[in-house]
């Protein structure tokens, strides 16, 4: 019984939030890794792209809510998501035309493109704050829980309750669908294959008749979809605040690099590695250990390895370890 209680407690605070957060990071990291693989620079504006996509979705959600449209138990934001993706696609394609294309044609060094993306980051951040303001915004509606702690306790008779938020389930399902679509596209379609070819060897791909501008356009479209989805899922699960998306940049980059920059599979693995280490190290283990150990040995303190404010430190340390011992990441990414 104690073992079950310990497991439920662990699932409640570590496993389930970890899976949800990991899915969000994985979607974010996929975007970063795709830009890196095709356009060959680290896109610092990615966090703010997520914020922009989420913002459009939030605005459309509010509009739908005011019209009385709803999805019943599901959040209305899911209905608004395609519009958010469309808005972000337009934004990214315009940005590419107005900003990045010039440097691509000049074959500028990647580090210049990184600085350019810093400028884009400023502008996107400014737009988001200008339109929706810097504050927290709520846009979640529908059913809050799939399983609430009370019903779980009544159902199983355990002391520990298990609460599964509907946003967590939605996050995981959406992430699985999106990732499956992405891999199907990259591996099975002609356009996806041309993208992978371009990422592997640019010259060879050009010689084989791959149209680079088309590949770049496709990449931005996919990145917009991924970023918006990740941003909306994160916003539903936690809350929408422009500044947190900027802060997500660090764990997202950590995920992409840990997995191996340029490798989509690596980005997903990296996302979960980072998410689980953050959650485990900042979780107070008192309850779980209390169930697992004999009473005399039960710990007095919270047994929290690091306070939650240090979660950046966790993703960073993992990043550093991987960079020092396996610079190309877990899944052999590019190392240009």
């Amino acid at each position, binding site marked *: 019984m104690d073992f079950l209680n310990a497991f439920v407690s662990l699932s409640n605070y570590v496993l389930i939030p970890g899976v949800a957060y990991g899915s969000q990071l994985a979607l974010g990291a996929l975007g970063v890794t795709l830009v890196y693989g095709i356009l060959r*620079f*680290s896109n610092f504006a990615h966090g703010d792209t997520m914020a922009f996509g989420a913002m459009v979705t939030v605005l459309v959600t509010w509009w739908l809510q005011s019209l009385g449209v709803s999805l019943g138990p599901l959040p209305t934001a899911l209905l608004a998501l395609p519009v958010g993706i469309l808005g972000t696609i337009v934004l990214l394609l315009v940005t590419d035309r107005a*900003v990045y294309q*010039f440097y691509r044609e000049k074959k500028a060094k*990647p*580090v*210049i493109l*990184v*600085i*350019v993306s*810093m*400028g*884009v*980051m*400023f*502008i*996107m*951040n*400014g*737009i988001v*704050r*200008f*339109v929706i*303001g*810097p504050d927290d915004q709520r846009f979640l509606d529908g059913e809050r829980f799939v399983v609430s702690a009370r019903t779980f306790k009544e159902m199983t008779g355990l002391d520990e309750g298990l609460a599964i938020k509907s946003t967590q389930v939605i996050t995981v399902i959406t992430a699985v669908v999106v990732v499956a679509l992405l891999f199907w596209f990259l591996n099975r379609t002609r356009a996806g294959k041309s993208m992978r070819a371009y990422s592997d060897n640019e010259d060879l791909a050009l010689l084989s008749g791959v149209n680079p501008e088309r590949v770049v356009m496709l990449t931005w479209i996919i990145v917009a979809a991924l970023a918006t989805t990740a941003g909306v899922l994160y916003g539903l699960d936690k809350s929408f605040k422009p500044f947190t998306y*900027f*802060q997500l*940049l*660090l764990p997202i*980059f*950590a995920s992409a*690099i840990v997995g191996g*920059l340029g490798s989509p599979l690596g980005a997903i693995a990296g996302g979960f590695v980072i998410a689980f280490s953050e959650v485990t190290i900042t979780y107070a283990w008192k309850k779980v250990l209390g169930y697992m150990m004999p009473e005399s040995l039960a710990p007095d*303190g919270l047994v929290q*390895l690091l*306070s939650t*404010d*240090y979660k*950046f*430190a966790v*993703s*960073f340390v993992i*990043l*550093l370890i991987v*960079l*020092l011992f396996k*610079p190309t990441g877990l899944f052999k990414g590019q*190392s*240009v």
Partner: protein
Amino acid sequence: MSDMVKNTGLFAIVGVLILLTGFLQSWNAAMLILNMGLISAIMALGVNLQWGFAGLFNIGVMGFVALGGLATVLISMPPTTEAWAAGGLRVLLALVLGAATIVAAVLLYRAMNAGWLRTLAMIVLLVAGFFIYRAVLDPGVGAIEAIDPAATGYLGGLGLPVLLAWPVGGLFAAGAAWLIGKTALGLRSDYLAIATLGIAEIIIAVMKNEDWLSRGVKNVIGVPRPVPFEIDLQNDPAFVDRVAGLGFDPVEASTIYVKLLYAGLFLVVLLVLLWLAQKALDSPWGRMLRAIRDNEVAAEAMGKDVKKRHLQVFILGSAICGIAGAMMTTLDGQLTPSSYQPLRFTFLIWVMVIVGGSGNNFGAVLGGFLIWFLWVQVEPMGRLLMDLITSGMADGYWLKTHLLESAAHMRLLTMGVVLLLVLRFSPRGLIPEK
């Protein structure tokens, strides 16, 4: 010669802009811009040393600036004797133990052969070390933070003159830079960027959470000043008589006098650093750095120690940022860890360097003044613009209210536009490298 004229002209324009602020707004506002402009110029010098000279992509400027601020507190605040008695030694012991664990791990890594045994030994050592460290540290921290938490609750500083904190801030930043450089400088430029970004966030997290060190989000206020207080000047008959003789209001004169003193101090530091940076640029060392930046492989083939040079310049540049950070905290008179935002303290400095002209010290200084001026003045300008746009709309119309409220967020947008325009049309900046 024409270059000289152009550059002087550019500096003159910035000077006129600040003077205009004085005439049109107030002299206090103008002096504030000047003082923060001086500090920004120093930060830009530091980043220019790393990026302009050596091509190192450091986006952890905020962390080094914050370390400088921490140095100000640790040097100049009076020590909290009860806190030291309660747990000071314990905390110091814990820090020593923590450092010893890391050193032991590094030694162990070098001593043993690669394999699962080494990995296991490392993990055991690090985990055991971490728990011992926490076991020693936590009671000490609890004891310190329990001492009069509303007023102190931290160890305090050494009670030394605050000017001493400026070089010490540089040393702190240099120490952190040495640690980062040792681990991350071998990596590619994007990775170094992420690594420095992460370090900066960690430094801020430590300052926000380790209350025993920096009072965390409770802030340290009342940092000693190197210049007299305005209120003392106003009560000083000699000062009042003198400014009255010149026809000034004593209250306003005292505030401006204090700011002028600060400006003098900052100017001395800026000129010294600028002179040193110019000397470094023209020295064989500076030429070597630029050779490495332009072609690392060739420089290495010529027998230049690329890694060592990178480490040197990374430490020097970070130290300059640390000095600037200490100066800024002295000017503010308080340390507020939550006010350190990467957009303001890292990316804005980068805009200064790029706009001013990377690789040119005078360019970096010019960029520091100009971008700081814009950063401050964009807000009122944005408000004016919004007033103009919304003047035709009815009062209370939602768009009007929204636009007026959002004017404050024009800053980031403007900075991004300025950065992109300069990168596109004048990628070498206002005062290009020779």
